């Protein structure tokens, strides 16, 4: 039988998705189901002086209107480090509203339309407070604190020193100082959040149908927050319409919907609409990063001093503290480079905005800042950026090494991706074309960016982040030989577009020598799937879920063959497996089918296997972006985009490439189109697709991908690619834009570069507009 792994086999998911048979959370129908709508704050910061729900309760078809007083729920805080101020907050806010979209009440009715009608009739009186709209306002101590108990909007201030940055700066030839700014961006999955809480007063069972990346984490969190016994709480996820980090935590709405269902004693559905999603589902990336770089005359990065300030929005996540994002940036900032001295200060502030959430490559700033910095250093020194990159990238003879931030860099091929990219780019030819084009008043640019992505990262990665003392966290898979001889694989992954029903089935089918249609991959149901607090996220599945499935199918195969050997009275080593049947080699008639084996094995049909994080675990890539800029209109065109990457062996190349292209598209969009804007009064300005601009097929360029082949790192040589595209693209694109605008003497430090800003950059200098 031909191997499935390594081949772009059809996705198992596609037959149902392409024929409209998918089952998303909005498609869940439960008898007696009611529909919820939230009353949300229209003002960014105010004390609530009264809430009058009587008119809403009187609307025919309304079953309940619940405020904080009506729901038995706990404070939403579950976990966080001691250095982070973590003010208490409720699923439905009671005392104050802290952003436009803050949920105040939940209206439950016979239809969504009735619930929305009634929500408009809930009368809330506010005593307005001055709003905190951005980092500068948050650092201004004269502004009102969002949380009285904190008394300040600065929730975290830490300093870390790695190596000896003071000595590095003392010996520097030059110090390059830059202040990078990333704008707030949304994850914007095409499907919003949602859930259907199916509560049975008769049994006390709560089944929460959700669209969620982490079903087990959601289950244990809901049990804690609702005070509901975990053994009577199930989370069930079907098809999920994307997430990109947004559906990865127990949300305040999840808790309110479940609490309302328990209070009312009937099932309650909440399906977020787009306006709610853009207002309240969470945003990311808004960070200011001040960097001083100590450099040698030859362009060596001797040391960095960094101060990162992150705007966490109003409320923290229940299961992911806002301090984690700058922590990951700090740990990964040296990346695949020889950066041995780093001082890193962190500030996290609260503002009157939606919550900062993880967004595809939540540490993307480390690549943006470092790769932009390398280009600026090159320009200052009159060097080619590629030359500076080559000087600073670690060489094979320097590996393995424990990086200065405590994470082991091993099996690094970032340099190989860079060198291959350089070959494909043909820099001298590009520079000649660029010079010729400038004479015609055309502005071409080329940008590169190189990085290593923890996918999943080495065993000491979580320790370096300070989030786990245990160096190895296992991922379990369970495989079942069904009575008819087919195979069911249970995974703790919760795919939402990644195609795990296909890739894990490819691995299992190869492992057991059965056709792929005899393997079913089950995910998303906490009653069935192995426990893991992390489902799908952090580019972990390619290594961890795959390793677990390879291990469990090998174990199941051993068990099947052992039973067959006994039944056939044959030596184990004389047996061969093909098409769900075990037979004696050379005597095909002497055989036993998987179904017959199952009859002998029952009830011991399940096998479990735990996979540990292996060494290495880095995916790595070099992105190359070509641009042509119309300096009159500020429009940036991308005629070519190339990713040279190494994610190890490919299970399904088309799925890998789809992940990369999707990520690159989001990265490009983060530079050219997307801004979850708020005014200086903290009013949100991008609450529909008319204001929050997603790129379409007409804007996104073709993206070419080259896979670097490197020696296998171990028996499981698959690594994640979920986030790298989004990590590399903003740096590569902004480097290309600065390169194109070099005649204008422009230094780019803002990630957001829509046409108006390009035009401003072009006109913001006294440099001539066209070379002589």
């Amino acid at each position, binding site marked *: 039988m031909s191997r499935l792994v390594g081949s*772009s086999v*059809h*996705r198992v*998911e*596609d*037959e*149902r*998705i*392409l*024929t*409209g*048979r*998918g*089952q*998303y959370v*909005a*498609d869940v129908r439960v008898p007696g189901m009611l529909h919820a709508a939230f009353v949300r704050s229209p003002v960014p910061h105010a004390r609530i002086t009264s809430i009058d729900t009587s008119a809403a309760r009187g609307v025919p078809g309304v079953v309940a209107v619940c405020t904080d007083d009506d729901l038995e729920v706990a404070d939403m805080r579950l976990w966080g480090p001691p250095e982070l101020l973590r003010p208490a907050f409720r699923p439905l806010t009671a005392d104050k509203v802290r952003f436009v979209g803050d949920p105040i009440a939940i209206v439950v009715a016979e239809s969504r*339309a009735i619930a929305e009608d009634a929500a408009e009739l809930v009368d809330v009186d506010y005593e307005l407070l001055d709003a905190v709209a951005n980092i500068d306002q948050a650092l201004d101590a004269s502004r009102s604190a969002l949380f009285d108990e904190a008394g300040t909007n600065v929730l975290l201030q830490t300093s870390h020193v790695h190596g000896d940055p003071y000595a590095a700066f003392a010996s520097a030839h030059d110090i390059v100082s830059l202040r990078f700014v990333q704008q707030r961006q949304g994850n*914007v*999955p*095409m*499907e919003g959040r949602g859930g259907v809480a199916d509560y049975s007063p008769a049994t006390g069972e709560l089944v929460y149908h959700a669209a969620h990346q982490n079903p087990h984490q959601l289950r244990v969190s809901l049990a804690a927050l609702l005070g509901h016994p975990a053994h009577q709480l199930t989370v069930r996820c079907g*098809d*999920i*319409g*994307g997430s*990109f980090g947004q559906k990865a935590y127990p949300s305040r709405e999840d808790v309110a919907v479940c609490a309302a269902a328990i209070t009312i004693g009937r099932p309650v559905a909440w399906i977020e*609409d*787009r306006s709610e999603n853009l207002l309240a589902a969470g945003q990311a990336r808004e960070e200011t990063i001040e960097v001083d770089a100590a450099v040698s005359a030859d362009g060596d990065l001797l040391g960095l001093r960094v101060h990162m300030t992150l705007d966490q929005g109003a409320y923290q996540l229940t299961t992911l503290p806002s301090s984690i994002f700058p922590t990951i940036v700090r740990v990964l900032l040296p990346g695949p480079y020889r950066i041995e001295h780093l001082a890193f200060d962190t500030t996290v502030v609260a503002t009157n905005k939606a919550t900062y959430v993880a967004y595809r490559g939540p540490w993307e700033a480390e690549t943006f800042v470092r790769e932009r910095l390398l280009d600026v250093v090159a320009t200052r020194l009159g060097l080619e950026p590629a030359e500076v990159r080559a000087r600073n990238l670690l060489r094979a003879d320097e590996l393995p090494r424990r990086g200065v931030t405590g994470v082991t860099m091993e099996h690094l091929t970032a340099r190989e991706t860079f060198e291959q990219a350089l070959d494909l780019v043909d820099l001298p030819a590009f520079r000649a074309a660029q010079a010729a084009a400038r004479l015609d008043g055309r502005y071409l640019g080329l940008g590169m960016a190189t990085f290593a992505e923890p996918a999943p990262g080495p065993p000491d990665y979580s320790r370096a982040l300070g989030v786990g003392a245990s160096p190895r966290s296992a991922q379990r898979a369970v495989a079942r030989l069904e009575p008819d001889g087919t195979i069911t694989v249970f995974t703790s992954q919760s795919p*939402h*577009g*990644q*195609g795990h029903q296909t890739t894990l089935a490819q691995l299992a089918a190869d492992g057991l020598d059965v056709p792929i249609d005899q393997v079913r991959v089950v995910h998303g149901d906490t009653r069935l799937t192995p426990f893991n607090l992390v489902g799908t996220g952090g580019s972990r599945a390619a290594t961890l879920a795959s390793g677990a499935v390879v291990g469990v199918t090998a174990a199941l195969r051993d068990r099947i063959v052992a039973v067959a050997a006994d039944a056939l009275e044959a030596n184990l080593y004389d047996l061969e497996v093909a098409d769900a049947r075990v037979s004696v080699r050379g005597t095909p008639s002497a055989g036993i089918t998987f179904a017959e084996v199952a009859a002998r094995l029952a009830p011991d049909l399940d096998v479990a296997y735990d996979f540990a994080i292996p060494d290495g675990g880095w995916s790595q890539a070099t992105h190359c972006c070509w641009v042509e800029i119309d300096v009159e209109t500020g429009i940036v065109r991308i005629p070519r985009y190339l990713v040279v990457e190494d994610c190890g062996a490919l299970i399904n190349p*088309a*799925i890998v490439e*789809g992940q990369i*292209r*999707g990520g*690159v*598209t*989001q990265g490009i969009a983060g530079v050219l189109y997307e801004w979850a804007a708020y005014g200086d009064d903290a009013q949100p300005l991008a609450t*529909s*697709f*008319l204001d929050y601009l*997603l790129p*379409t*097929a*007409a*804007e*996104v360029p*073709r*993206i070419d991908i080259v896979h670097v082949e490197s020696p296998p790192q171990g028996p499981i040589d698959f690594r994640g690619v979920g986030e790298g595209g989004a990590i590399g693209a903003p740096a590569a694109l902004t480097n290309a834009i600065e390169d194109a605008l070099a005649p204008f003497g422009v230094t780019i430090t803002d990630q957001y570069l829509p046409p108006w800003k390009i035009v401003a950059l072009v006109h913001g200098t006294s440099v001539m507009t066209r070379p002589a």
Partner: protein
Amino acid sequence: MISVALTVDGHAASATVEPRTTLADLLRDHIGATSVHLGCEQGACGACTVLVDGELARSCLLLAAQCDGRAVTTLAGIGAPGSMHPLQEALRDSHGFQCGFCTPGFVLTALALLRDNPAPTEAEVRAELSGNLCRCTGYQSIVEGVLVAAERMAAE
């Protein structure tokens, strides 16, 4: 309340709904046609696109009452597992989609495109699909699938 009778994917259907009910809500909540996905309810994302008497329409922007007596085609109506439309087959071959939420609108938009322009260029496909948003793919795999479908359908 008003009564609406229409044809959905070749089957007669009827429902009594509030006058303000959109076609999308009629299809999803009263007729069970859940292949119609709501991504923005503002006509911007295109996920809810259906064919009404053969013409592309955003079902979130039409009232159910406007569709009385008309024939609606949804994604579920153009092919089924085991008997997919050549366009669906081509999109499967190209790994066109990932999460699948935007898929209904893209497939129906592409179907109308290939009917009106059986041999489109890549630029024409990209322009025609630019009223539909996908957050997963970067569009390349969708565009390729439509171009492959055009070739195959021309050869048939």
